[in-house]
């Protein structure tokens, strides 16, 4: 995010003094960034607006704790991610996914994956994303979060560590375990369907 035309320290100082225009400016500036994070980790049946609101209210309330050492976007993203994670904890995990749950597009994607070793076509990206999200729904919130950040958003481990507050070793271990579980869920769909056919 380009900070050249935005005097962040001055804006933060004015917000700490209770100046409403500065708070509005900060909100408008960082809303797209927060909304993108929230949308990527949005639990089902949760309102995106509510989570954005919770994130900003928490951020404004904790502004005194921002020391200015790291980038403000990292600090803000950590609040957004934690807010989503807390919300995900209220969601019940789906026990398993069956191939029939994946819909017509998901079914075609699975056919392709089983019958060929070629990459999926770009046009299937949205359907592939839906399949992955269905599989991720079977994992615990922290596992879901780490895989989304690493594999769907393609963020480096260091950035995931900064966003979540976990150290890099924890990120790697969680990602490894989560991938194992995801692989089992994936294989179960494959083998389950093979037995049926």
């Amino acid at each position: 995010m380009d900070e050249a035309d935005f005097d962040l320290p001055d804006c933060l100082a004015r917000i700490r003094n209770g100046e409403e225009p500065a708070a509005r400016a900060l909100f408008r500036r960082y809303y797209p960034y927060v909304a993108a994070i929230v949308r990527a980790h949005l639990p089902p049946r949760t309102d995106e607006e509510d989570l954005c609101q919770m994130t900003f209210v928490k951020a404004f309330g904790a502004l005194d704790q921002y020391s200015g050492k790291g980038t403000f976007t990292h600090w803000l993203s950590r609040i957004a991610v934690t807010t989503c994670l807390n919300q995900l904890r209220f969601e019940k995990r789906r026990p398993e996914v069956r191939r029939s749950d994946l819909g017509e597009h998901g079914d075609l994607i699975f056919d392709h994956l089983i019958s060929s070793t070629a990459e999926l076509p770009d046009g299937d990206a949205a359907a592939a994303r839906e399949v992955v999200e269905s599989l991720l729904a079977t994992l615990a919130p922290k596992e879901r979060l780490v895989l989304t950040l690493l594999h769907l958003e393609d963020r480096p481990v260091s950035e995931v560590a900064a966003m979540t507050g976990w150290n890099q070793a924890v990120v790697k271990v969680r990602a490894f375990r989560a991938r194992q579980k995801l692989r089992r869920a994936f294989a179960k769909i494959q083998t389950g369907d093979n037995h049926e056919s």
Partner: protein
Amino acid sequence: MNPDPLKSLDRLLRCAASTPPKDNPEVPFGLETRVIAAWKEARTAETPEFNVLAVFQKASLAALACTAIAATVSVSALFHSQDPQAHVANYALVASLDR
């Protein structure tokens, strides 16, 4: 043909990751106002101008302290008084307690 599930999963993840990001969202109507209102409310709660409960607590503590000091002074005066009548009263008080 049944490819390795791990490789299939990798292919699935790679394809899913290539989903183009959605456009930058507009700020929903009323959200900015709600956020600012919640922030201002939180600020007001942090710095109350007149906290009735705190004043009541301080007044209660002050009254308790005054009562304790007055009682200490009264008892002390009763036992250390040189007045013979006070000694008689003291003796009578102790005797009645013994009974």
